[in-house]
């Protein structure tokens, strides 16, 4: 058993030093969150270099605003919020790339990406809510699927690395991830922002 309380303590002490301007702790946060924030941006921006550049800007922004962040949990929130508004800005000014033969498809995708980002912007609760939902959902996964999902999400491992480590094929890893997504889909149909949930008295 790990001791979450002592982890939280050291996280908190790190956080205090970060607020005082520790570059070491900044690097620690960069190493912990860069892949996640870049992954977020890559969901909306096709060009990887641009997407990762936006993620870097989010970290610069974090450094400049470190005084305003009140708790360690505020760091990923801030990074995602910053990345989100930069992605939105980028998409708005981006001409639709000819990614598909079918131009209408490319336009539809572009419009939908904008809609997803704007939806996130409206619902500032969504990150924490989602965190909660996702964590709950992970615990409900079958053991092997859960192991793989966690390796992917928390240890940032590639499918091939996971396959090597667990001595299974890449195809099996993909199958487990697909399964996880299927279950996520079901549990997310229950997911609605807290404010809306409060308006629906008999949610089954």
């Amino acid at each position: 058993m790990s001791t979450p309380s002592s982890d939280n303590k050291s996280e908190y002490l790190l956080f205090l030093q970060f607020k005082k301007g520790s570059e070491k702790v900044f690097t620690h946060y960069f190493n912990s969150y860069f892949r996640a924030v870049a992954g977020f941006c890559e969901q909306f921006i096709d060009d990887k270099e641009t997407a990762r550049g936006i993620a870097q800007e989010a970290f610069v922004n974090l450094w400049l605003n470190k005084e305003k962040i009140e708790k360690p949990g505020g760091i990923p929130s801030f990074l995602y919020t910053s990345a989100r508004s930069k992605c939105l800005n980028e998409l708005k000014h981006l001409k639709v790339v000819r990614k598909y033969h079918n131009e209408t498809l490319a336009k539809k995708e572009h419009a939908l990406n904008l809609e997803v980002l704007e939806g996130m912007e409206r619902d500032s609760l969504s990150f924490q809510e989602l965190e909660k939902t996702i964590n709950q959902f992970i615990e409900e996964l079958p053991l092997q699927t859960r192991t793989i999902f966690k390796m992917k999400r928390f240890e940032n491992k590639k499918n091939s690395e996971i396959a090597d480590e667990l001595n299974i094929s890449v195809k099996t890893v993909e199958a487990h991830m697909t399964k996880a997504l299927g279950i996520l889909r079901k549990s997310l149909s229950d997911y609605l922002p807290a404010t809306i949930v409060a308006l629906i008295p008999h949610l089954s």
Partner: protein
Amino acid sequence: MNSTILYKYFNGEATEEETTLIFEWIDDSPQNKRQFIKLKTAFAYSTSAEVDQPELDRRRSSIKLGKKQFRPWRYAAIFVLLIASGIYYYSSQNKTSITEQQPLVLQLEDASETINIEQVTQIKTKEGIHLANFSDNQLTYIEQPKSDASVNQFISVPYGKTLKIQLPDSSIVILNAGSTLEFPSRFDTSKRQVTLTGEGFFDVTKNPSQPFIVLAKNLNVEVLGTRFNVQAYPEDRVVETALEEGSVSLSSASEPNKNLLLIPGELATYMINSGVLTKKTDNIQQKTAWTRGELLLDNTAFTDILKTLERHYNIKTVNQYPELEQESFSGTVKLNLGIEQTLQLLKLDTDFDFTLNNNQLILRRPSNTNP
């Protein structure tokens, strides 16, 4: 909609045909669209990019963090603080301090002569032999000619201070607060022997023909050339030796022929009562952090932290909140923050009240505690 296709799409691996299928499904009904948006939101927040370590390092180092801007009000605040502490010092002059600040002292040859190190720049014997120089909190010994008699040196560092010493063989010792070191002004030709109580960090110059030996309580630490830390405070029941570089050989007075060899990264623990000597790999950085003016806490017990703070800041503690002793802390504390700041930092972690008066620290249960 098939989850496999959706997963491929989110992973950027779907073909144009598959993408077309997905968008047809989205156009089918508003529910489908809502479901897609939720799913994409969740995926975006939970996925991570495949960035390898070199790229991560490169991207991190390309971010240049701005240096602190000059903010005059900061200096104004410090100025005010200095005045305030000046007033405090003035008003507390008449009270007797609980723990007086002791001087840094050097005794020569069986305490025949006592020198307050901080008041001199040169250390000389009664006969006028120049032994060492003192400046910038460093005592530098001069190698003595073989013709001169060796004079025993006994240095004691009080609580609230540390001292860096360069020994006659150019080895460096950093003595922690509340420690003493005894050594000759000229080492024997066969060995270099020093006696330590308290804590010292040693950076020993290499000389295979003249081993360096640290005697700490009943433990012998023998080295040829290396960097290591020895902790042997009188009130502690153990002597700890942490090796940073090189190799050392340990033996106890009771079993002088039984040696324990340490490799870098290992910590040896000698139990004084039982005479048991064991070793394990440990966080050596943590053991030597004090030489860099830091206190590195890694699930460290509050009682151990208090002991270190008492030595470093020369304070005495009265703990009226015994539950605190069950707590442990992690993180790095810069010791030059001062005692109040350090306590404030620890307090953020586990709340307690404290008052500091004439070097006496009183810890209390927090007044706004929730039962």
